[in-house]
């Protein structure tokens, strides 16, 4: 075997000055303060959830505590967001509640992606009857608005956090299946798929070893955006009484509980509502920014 002398002049040099992900990320962030805001909100939420018992001024207020001597106090230096009907600190409950919202959202999305992505990949890669069947089932799920779907599922079971997660995931996998389906449909026409095939790679290896890694960017963007939407849907369920039951400090449940005290005790609904708002907007802005950084499409 001969080898070409490595000292021989080498083709053209790489044409474009290689722009690393870090450089691109920095440039995007500088041009888009909204992404930074989104990122900070998300970071704050995660930190809040992770260290909730240490951040909340009265962590015990998350449970069934009763402090009647300080019930329905408006926001003050001691209770920034006021106190509720039985005297619990609203700020503490919101901080503790972030754990529920975030855990729900993460669990839902992990479950939805684990169900949806493989199904979408298989449907697009195999095509034919397999693909058509998967996508038709997908469309049946898609035809029912997710809130209605989740309402039906939860009302058939006893409302609790696992049930909420299960119900939302069951409604949400369709989006992941469709996303993966569309991406794989175009990726499988790339020549590297033919190259893998002539290399002798099995269908399983091509679909999940070669094609799937090319979905990471879109999946990262999608999951980030979805974290916000799932938090919103979870709160909606809580509001309708189909989420985690009181005394759990679920944000939607808190809004529902405080609703009867409007307009006098406005802080009972406003602050949990704002928490939901901040989470949704935060994940949305951050997701959009990620989309730009990772070179995704609009």
């Amino acid at each position: 075997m001969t080898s070409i002398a490595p000292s021989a002049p080498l083709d053209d040099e790489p044409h474009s000055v290689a722009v690393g992900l870090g450089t691109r990320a920095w440039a995007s962030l500088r041009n888009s303060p909204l992404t930074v805001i989104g990122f900070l909100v998300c970071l704050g939420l995660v930190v809040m959830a992770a260290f909730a018992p240490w951040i909340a001024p009265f962590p015990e207020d998350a449970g069934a505590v009763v402090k009647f001597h300080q019930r329905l106090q408006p926001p003050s230096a001691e209770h920034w967001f006021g106190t509720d009907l039985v005297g619990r600190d609203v700020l503490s409950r919101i901080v503790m509640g972030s754990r529920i919202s975030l855990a729900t959202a993460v669990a839902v999305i992990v479950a939805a992606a684990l169900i949806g992505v493989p199904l979408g990949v298989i449907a697009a890669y195999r095509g034919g009857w397999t693909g058509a069947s998967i996508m038709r089932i997908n469309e049946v799920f898609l035809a029912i608005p997710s809130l209605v779907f989740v309402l039906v599922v939860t009302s058939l079971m006893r409302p609790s956090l696992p049930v909420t997660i299960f119900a939302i995931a069951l409604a949400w996998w369709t989006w992941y299946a469709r996303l993966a389906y569309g991406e794989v449909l175009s990726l499988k026409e790339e020549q590297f798929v033919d190259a893998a095939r002539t290399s002798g790679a099995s269908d399983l290896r091509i679909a999940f070893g070669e094609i799937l890694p090319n979905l990471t960017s879109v999946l990262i963007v999608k999951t980030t955006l979805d974290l916000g939407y799932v938090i919103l849907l979870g709160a909606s369920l809580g509001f309708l009484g189909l989420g985690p039951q009181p005394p759990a400090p679920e944000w939607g449940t808190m809004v529902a509980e405080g609703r009867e005290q409007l307009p006098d005790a406005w802080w009972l609904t406003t602050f949990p509502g704002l928490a939901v708002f901040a989470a949704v907007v935060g994940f949305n802005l951050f997701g959009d920014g990620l989309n730009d950084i990772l070179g995704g499409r609009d």
Partner: protein
Amino acid sequence: MTVVLRLDRVSKVFGSGRGWFGRSRRPDVRAVSEVSLTLETGGRVGLVGESGSGKTTTARLILGLTRASAGRIELAGRDVTALTPEDEGHIHRSAQIVFQDPLSSLNPKKSVQQIVMLPLIAQKIGTTNERLERVKELLDQVGLPQRYRNSLPDRLSGGQRQRVGIARALAINPQLLVLDEPTASLDVSVQARVLALLDDLQRSLGIAQIMVSHNLGVIRHVADKVAVMYLGRIVEQGSTAQIFSAPAHPYTQALFSAIPVIDPSERASLPQRPEVKGEVTSAAHIPNGCAFHPRCTSARAECSNVVPQLKAIADGHQVSCHLYP
């Protein structure tokens, strides 16, 4: 000389199938019609033709990426026409391809090392250490510095990418290398280096090569036999010297006259320009008789009725044209 590849009257029809209620949705497309080709160890065949002439489909048939509608394909001593899983395994162990677009043919999420190693992993060849060693050897062989081993394809230049593609194709020591316009998307100076590399590999490893191209200059450089395709059929084949010095088929002659020249005096060294009328006919509506007759200035009555067969006009030089009785 052992025969590495034998195509015997191979055809490929892309059927649209039957629509609902048994109606045909679209006319069938005859991409390749009765192509016969033989290639021996160390031989290099150039497959020439314009877009839609069926040369890429022929390449895909050889590699088992699509199933032949008729005919017989024999690769490295085995009839692989049926394309059973065993046949596919045999094809993957014997033939590899280098694609036209080096970027699209390299997985953007995989490093050079992962890409070159894929055939070894997929075919369970060697241990991890042996594979790493082999990758190193292959990169030396194609002249890509080892420092690019962990680079992603988008960090490489066009020529470097094509070297990765060639290294991948060589990984399993194939007996046949299919080159699908391997230089078409490269700068001219880079083209020359990639062609030199292919020359070198052919000399040192003796791998049979099929070069699919519409670039006659490239074909002349690399091939010792040439087959000219028009609308799915081989209209002329022979040694490179025969085809280039005495092109017989009016279509081949027309192809030569289409070679751009810088100095008009060079034109004189090329065969005379016969006129070609009209556009390339679509493979979905192949004319009766000789497929080339609507564009041929020498067409006679029989050309529109009778399909000409390949006939020898000299030793090893065959042409399918009614002008040669």
